[in-house]
């Protein structure tokens, strides 16, 4: 293995391992701050530079939290499976970190001094794999195991319930997640993340087409469920299961879970950006190639902000409603969406009139399907009129 190759591998991977965990710290701060503002609080605003009174809007909070987590006692419940209790958070982190390499974050601009290294970097990047998207889904699926492991190993009934919920939920929502990605894969004719992003150059983002929009919404909802975000945070439902599968975790093991969860959030938002939002495309990217990374991260962050916003707004679903939503609503509509996009693909480039017609009809079909499925599933649920006694 040549020295250049080692350098290339390092350049291709190390930024991922540095950027995302530090973004994780920033995101915890952002989430707390945004949630606080949504709730009309101030959020963290005291912790800044140590030994001074400079608050820096509480930006020191993640560091303080990290230090606290490190020094907390690591408690393993009596009778728990010690090995699995230890392995679960690690297993939660590994796939989360692993899938990051399937996001088309091209750092080859770093190697300005050597053309060949830039070439090597391109050769070892994970997203250039032919089946990058499939790999992404395959490896995210492993996350389920870690959740189950944690739930089972803790020997706590809440943990176990949380773990069971997590498995059911993650498996169910993986299907609409993959099916909505299929739309884009069909359109591009490739599973390569780089090619998918390149196919959307020139503002041809898939989110701007009816089927793409529907797929994006389905993808986003399923992504919320996959990453256990509100309103699908049932596995860690605080008001029901204390903290779900990580009830018995403390200290750094808990921090690892937390880290894994946020990295999964980044990864899945990144995939959404690749599939529907044009990857790293944005103004001035052609002039400054490194801006692509910036735009990509900006898209990830705007998706994450929406996640935080939803978390600040919505209560959570119930288990049966959650499953019904996946199987009776998202699944049929994503299958119909695939059908529509297949037809649309065949009718492409046939003039503006045909395109407009296809768009109109597909929008209509999708909306009617959604409304119909909603009526079918929630027939009895509607606001009521109330009477008054004088």
């Amino acid at each position, binding site marked *: 293995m040549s020295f250049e190759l080692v350098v290339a591998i390092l350049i291709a991977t190390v930024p991922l391992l540095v950027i995302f965990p530090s973004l994780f710290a920033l995101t915890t701060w952002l989430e707390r701050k945004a949630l606080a503002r949504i709730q009309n609080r101030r959020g963290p605003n005291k912790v800044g530079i140590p030994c001074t009174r400079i608050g820096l809007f509480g930006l020191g909070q993640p560091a303080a939290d990290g230090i606290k987590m490190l020094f907390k006692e690591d408690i393993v419940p009596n009778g728990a499976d010690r090995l699995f209790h230890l392995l679960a958070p690690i297993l939660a982190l590994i796939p989360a970190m692993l899938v990051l390499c399937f996001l088309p974050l091209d750092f080859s601009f770093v190697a300005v001094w050597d053309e060949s290294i830039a070439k090597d970097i391109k050769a070892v990047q994970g997203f250039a794999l032919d089946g990058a998207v499939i790999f992404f889904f395959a490896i995210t699926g492993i996350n389920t195991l870690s959740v189950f492991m944690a739930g089972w190993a803790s020997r706590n*009934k809440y943990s176990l319930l949380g773990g069971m919920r997590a498995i059911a939920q993650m498996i169910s929502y993986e299907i609409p997640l993959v099916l909505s990605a299929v739309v884009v894969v069909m359109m591009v004719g490739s599973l390569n993340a780089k090619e998918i992003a390149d196919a959307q150059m020139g503002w041809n983002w898939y989110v701007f087409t009816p089927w793409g929009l529907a797929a994006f919404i389905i993808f986003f909802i399923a992504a919320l469920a996959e990453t256990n975000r509100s309103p699908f945070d049932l596995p860690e439902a605080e*008001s029901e299961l204390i903290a779900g599968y990580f009830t018995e975790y403390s200290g750094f093991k808990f921090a690892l879970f937390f880290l894994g969860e946020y990295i999964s959030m980044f990864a899945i938002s990144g995939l959404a950006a690749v599939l529907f939002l044009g990857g790293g495309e944005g103004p001035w990217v052609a002039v400054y190639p490194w801006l692509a990374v910036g735009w990509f991260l900006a898209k990830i962050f705007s998706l994450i902000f929406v996640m935080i916003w939803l978390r600040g707004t*919505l209560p*959570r679903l119930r*288990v049966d*409603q959650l499953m019904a939503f996946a199987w009776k609503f998202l699944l049929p509509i994503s299958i119909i969406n695939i059908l529509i996009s297949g037809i649309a693909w065949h009718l492409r480039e046939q003039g503006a009139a045909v395109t407009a017609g296809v768009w109109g009809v597909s929008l209509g079909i999708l909306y009617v399907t959604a409304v119909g499925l909603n009526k079918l599933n929630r027939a009895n649920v509607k*606001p009521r009129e*109330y009477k008054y*006694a004088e």
Partner: protein
Amino acid sequence: MVAPNYELIEQDGLETSLLEVSMGPHHPSTHGVFRMDVKLDGETVVDLKPVFGYLHRNHEKLAENMSYLANMPFTDRLDYFNSMTNNWAYALAAEELVEIEVPERAEYLRVIMAELTRLVNHVSLVGFFVNDLGALGTPLMYAFREREKILDLFEEASGARMMCNYFRFGGLRCDVPAGWLDRAREVVDQFPKFLDEYEKLLCENEIILSRTQGVGTLSRELAINAGITGPMLRASGVAYDLRKVDAYGIYDRFQFRVPYGEVGDCYDRFMVRMLEMRESVQILKQALDGIPEGEIMGKAPRVFKPKPAEVYGRVEGPKGELGFYLIADGTPKPYRYRVRPPSLINLTVLRDMCLGQKIADAVVILGSIDIVLGEVDR
């Protein structure tokens, strides 16, 4: 609903054992130190046993060993969200013992305080309830912002925000400070605007609708038989409100309506409270307009030593009928003192409402009952 006799479920030759979970005494959503021993079949509740008493403070026996007045601050601590209505119920009972006339201004202020308390209770209950549904505290924070304004009013009037200890036998401890009524009017005028926002946030939310409708249905018959009172009874379709029935104080002078539901599920209980807040605002506006100047204390004896008698004083508290039963024996201490706590009595139907529901619903149903453990355990 008849409880199915589950011990070991046998189904298609498969034997499944039940999962017993002890939710509480410290659990994020048991509203205090309360425990639900739940038996689960998967996630479905097949049996539930409420366990309480962790917060027992010997309230009734304590009251029998101190003077009538000295017990007043302890009534604050029954249902610590609604100290004003607790005070009122106790004062009503004691006033009946010695037959004191309450001055006009004091009566108006009592109504104002009680209705402000109702706003505080309902608005934060709705917040807690949605919190139990899984919202991350956002409605609760909005509710607390409004609650804070009303608590500021309480602090100005009585000196304390929650443990007001403001009512006295025959009137109120002191008059409200100058300008208080204007500030109260401002808060009351602002409140409907907040309610609009609150309703927009919650009342049409599809997730809340499907989480609460058809969950924890309490039938009219069971509600009446179990002695349920307050918004919970009205949600089950009985328009029974002590403010109308007893018309204690001067409630007969105000125009207000009593909303009631039909189904008796969590959604009805939630909505009845939302609608009641609007009616409370109406009462408050009328009371603030009509309040006269004048004395604040009636002619109460300096030493409270009632003749032997038995009385029962009750008010429509925010949680239901709050009653105080007193037996006087001619000494400065009550011979027997008994509280009818609405929280405890409303809690008795918890099991009936939870059977067959999911575990997540059990939490929501508990939240919709609106209990305060200080009152349940006393």
